[in-house]
Structures are given as structure tokens and as C-alpha cells.
């Protein structure tokens, strides 16, 4: 295969913990959100990343799209070092990696209409003022929304509609690679299916490279060709989606598979009591966000 579109090489991200004094005296160990992760994503890949809170999957996404810089290791976008690229905050590379967010109510500016939201995005891609309106409407059609939603504000939309607008906004930049961070976990099941089908269609029709972050293995299975399982900031297993799910090698992958609700079938293989699922053995460690160490400084990363 040719050179990867996006390549993570030994990437780590840690956050200082404790107060100012603790840090000066190096008394508190830093919080490691991502630990020495290497990963190649090729053009046209549809990669699923699964893991629970604290597994580092969202940190990985934030690093890969250039919102935060790694503490160690290198991220290459088409061979160019992302940390170097980030020096130019508004550089042309920005367009190429985009992200769709989990919480649709936080993903859209509550004071901007759908049309304005898309138009200002198109403006940043360099679309001429006269062409923006038509293209915004085209984007709405692409994600299966009617033009009548264009003048609406986010609170006038349903969760599923907002999620699609967020998707349309990311697509407006014509990205090479799209990271979707739990894009459907806040939606009702019927809307989940709609958005997942839409993503599948976009990868087929636009040849979009997609990284789908989720905790729902069954959803990942219908959408993705590759699967990466993460836990505690590290990749514990990866491979072709079908292989990993049919023949999981790591105990944690097996645990995740066993946790998927299985309807009536689940009644049998869930002998009521104290099996390995019990207790807090697998309680995930507190996340960086819980500790309040993942702040905006990291996002606005002094450029």
C-alpha cells in the first residue's frame, strides 16, 4: 500500500497533575492520556476505534486533527509533521482533517443559523460569497436535510438534525479524513441508524476516509473495515473488523464483546452472578477531563 494518509508514530500525550507547587517539585506524576500509540490510516480506510471512557480514544482524535500537540512522538499528515504544521494555526492543512462531535447541542453555535454556520465554513475554504448559499444548500441535501432548515437556529432542530448539520459543516471543508467522535451515542436508536447509514453512504460516494469512534461494537461492525480497541491510553488489539470480532485475542476485547446487549440471546449467556464482569475490576480510571487538567489552553495551544 502507498504512503499512509495519516500516521501516528509512538505518540503520547500527558497532562501535568496537581497544583503549581506540585508541578515545580515534580511531586505529582503527570496524567498519561495516550501512551506510545502507533497507527497508520490509509486513504479510503473506514476505521473504528472502540474503548470506554478514559481509554484515550478522544485524546487520540484531538491529537490527530491538530487540536492539541503530542507530548512525545510524531503525527504525519501525508508525510508532513503535524506539530510543524500547527505553527500556522490557519494553514491550508486545516481543511484536510475535520471532526464531527458527540454532543450535538454543544457542536453548533446556538446563535448562528444553519446557513450562517455553513457559509462561514465555506468562506474559510475560500468559496466565493456568491456561491456559498448554493453550496450550503447542496451540503444540506448531501446529509439528507431539506433547504427549509437553512434559516433555523440549532435549538429549533432535533438532535439528529443537529448531528447532520455538524456533519455537513465538517464536509464543507472537503476533508481528506473525518474523525467522528461518538457521533450517535446521544441519539435515539432510530436516529442512530439514520446517521450511521449516512456516514456509510458518504464513505462510499465521496471516498471519504473515516475514523469512527464509538463504544458500540455492533455499530462499528456495520460501518467499519478496520477495528482498533483501546484501553487506558493504549491500543490493545487491532485488525480487520470482522477478524477481531469473530476471533478476539485480547481479554479486554472479549469483555467488550460480551457486554454488548444481545436481546433474548443475552439471557442465557449471562448467568446471573459473580462472573468476571462483576466488581470494579474493570472500572475505567478517571479521565483527564474528570481531573480538570484537559483545559482550553491545550485546545488553543499557543500557536
Amino acid at each position, binding site marked *: 500500500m502507498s504512503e499512509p494518509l495519516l500516521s501516528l508514530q509512538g505518540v503520547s500525550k500527558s497532562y501535568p497533575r496537581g497544583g503549581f507547587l506540585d508541578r515545580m517539585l515534580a511531586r505529582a506524576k503527570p496524567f498519561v492520556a495516550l501512551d506510545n500509540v502507533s497507527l497508520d490510516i490509509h486513504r479510503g480506510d473506514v476505521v473504528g476505534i472502540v474503548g470506554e471512557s478514559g481509554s484515550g480514544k478522544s485524546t487520540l482524535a484531538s491529537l490527530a486533527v*491538530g487540536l492539541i500537540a503530542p507530548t512525545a512522538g510524531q503525527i504525519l499528515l501525508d508525510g508532513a509533521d503535524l506539530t510543524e504544521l500547527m505553527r500556522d494555526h490557519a*494553514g491550508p492543512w486545516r481543511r484536510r482533517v475535520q471532526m464531527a*462531535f458527540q454532543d450535538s447541542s454543544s457542536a453548533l453555535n*446556538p446563535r448562528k443559523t444553519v446557513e450562517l454556520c455553513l457559509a462561514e465554513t465555506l468562506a474559510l475554504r475560500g468559496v466565493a460569497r456568491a456561491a456559498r448559499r448554493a453550496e450550503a444548500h447542496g451540503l444540506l441535501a448531501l446529509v439528507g436535510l431539506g433547504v427549509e432548515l437553512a434559516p433555523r437556529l440549532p435549538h429549533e432542530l432535533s438532535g439528529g438534525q443537529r448531528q447532520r448539520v455538524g456533519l455537513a459543516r465538517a464536509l464543507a471543508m472537503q476533508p481528506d479524513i473525518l474523525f467522528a467522535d461518538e457521533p450517535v451515542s446521544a441519539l435515539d436508536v432510530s436516529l442512530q441508524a439514520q446517521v450511521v447509514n449516512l456516514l456509510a453512504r458518504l464513505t462510499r460516494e465521496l471516498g471519504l476516509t473515516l475514523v469512527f469512534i464509538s463504544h458500540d461494537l455492533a455499530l462499528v461492525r456495520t460501518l467499519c473495515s478496520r477495528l482498533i480497541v483501546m484501553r487506558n491510553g493504549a491500543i490493545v488489539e487491532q485488525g480487520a473488523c470482522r477478524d477481531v470480532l469473530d476471533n478476539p485475542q485480547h481479554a479486554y476485547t472479549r469483555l467488550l464483546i460480551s457486554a454488548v446487549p444481545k436481546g433474548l440471546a443475552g439471557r442465557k449467556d449471562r448467568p446471573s452472578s459473580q462472573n468476571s464482569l462483576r466488581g470494579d475490576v474493570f472500572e475505567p480510571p478517571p479521565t483527564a477531563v474528570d481531573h480538570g487538567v484537559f483545559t482550553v489552553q491545550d485546545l*488553543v495551544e499557543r500557536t
Partner: protein
Amino acid sequence: MNHWSQALRAVDWTGWLGAAFVVLMLGSAVFAPFIAPFDPIEVRLEDRLAAPDAVHWLGTDQAGRDVFSRVIYGARASLTVGIGAVVIGALIGVSAGLFAAYKGGLGDQLVMRIIDGIAAIPLLVWAIAIVGILGVGPVQIGPVALPNEAKIVLLVGVLFSPVFGRVTYAVAQRVVRADFVKARLLQGARHRDIVLGDILPNCLSPIIVQATLLVAIGIVIEASVSFVGLGVQPPSPSWGTMLSDARSAIYSGEWWLPVFPGLAISLTVVGFNLLGDAVRDLFDPRSEARTLVA
């Protein structure tokens, strides 16, 4: 615009009442020469301490000056200080708050600690102390002579800025974390556009509420500073100096001397507060949605 006309219809009567008070006071200040039936400064000892009647609607003071005319002209000093100080305070405070919240790190700490420092001493104590030190009358800063009123406006404005700074900071810190800000960063939008176009608009409601409250406080400060003789200088009228002059009248029975300037202050303060509530609702994009519990 559709949203606005819809939202305006949702403003209830208290909001309109507040707006009416504020417009009334602003109108008085601007059109004072056309409204006031008498010269507010001219002394006519033969008319002194007249009770309200058909000629002097609100009576006259110890120097025979028409109280109604003085209340009308007094609106100028009060509102100038109230509104002027709020504008200056908002400019300084909101910028500082936005900067600290967006930038984070050391800049954040520095700005917020300065703000804490100013805010550590109560407003009124600051105001009276500084005016006391600088003395009454214009201040010479280089080639510019700052008139007494402008000095008070500037001073109260600076003292207001921590309030704006903190309110802005508190909201902006939350807004900055929102995913739509990340999305803008990912698009390569300029920091200035993100701060002014995405963050500031979502911080506006509490800032506006704060502004209307502070206009009211500014009016009270002006009254207090003038009351102790450090503000607007006699004979020009302000509600504070009028109250100050009316001290003796409280005992001698000329009730109209303290009541009407006091009423003017109260109505204006209440007016700005009511208006503030209405404007906050108006600026909330979800205000129509809230009328129907979903």
C-alpha cells in the same frame, strides 16, 4: 427579522414598564431644556420652599429653584455617570475576561489576579477615597484637562471593570470549551473571529444583565459621591446633590425636597433592572422555546 419580532412579542409588561422608565429618564436628560419650565440654577429667594402647586409642580428648594426642573436636569449627571461608567467598565472588563478565558495559562492568572485586586475593596469606598485624594475639580493629565464629571465616569468605569471581567470570564470559560469553538479552530478561523463571533455572543446575556444592574449602581454612586460633596458641584443639579441639600428638610417638613429626587433615582434603578431582565430573555435564543415546556 423574524426571530426578533417573535421574541419582542414575548416581552412581558414588566419589560415594557422598565423600558418606559428608562426612555422617560433618557428623554428628560436629552431634552431637559425643552421640558424644564424653569432655569434649574437661577436663584429666586422670594419663591423659596414653596410646596408643590400649579406653578412649581414639585415645589421649590431653599434657594427658590424649581424642583421639577432640577430633577429633569439632574437626570443628565446621573445617567452620564451611570451609562458612561458601564460602557467604560464593560469595554475593559469584557475584553479582559474574554482574553483570560480564551488564552488560559499565565495570561489568565495575571489578568484575573489584577481583577481580584481591584475587586477586593468595595466600590463605594474606592470611589470616595479616590475622589477624595484627587480632590474636586478638573484633573490635569498632560495636556488634557479632565472635567470633574468625566473623571468620575472614568473612575467608576474602572471600578466596574472587575465585575464585568468576572462575569465574562465565568461564562466564557464554559463557552470556550464548547465543541463549536473546536470546530472553528479546526476550520482555521482567526482567533479574533472566534472570540468576537462565537464566544462573545454566547456570553452576552449575563453581561447585559450585569450592565443594567451596574447602571443602577452607577447612579447610586454618583448620588453618593455628590451627596458627600465630591461629585457634581453646586449649583448644577444632580439627584445626589439634591438629596444632600434636602437633609435638613427631612426634619423641617419640606417632604418634596428629598422625595422627588429619591423617586427619580428609584424609578431609574428599577427601570434598568426590569429592562435588564427583558433584554436577557430577548438575547437568549431559546427564550421562545422556554415558554413551552418540552
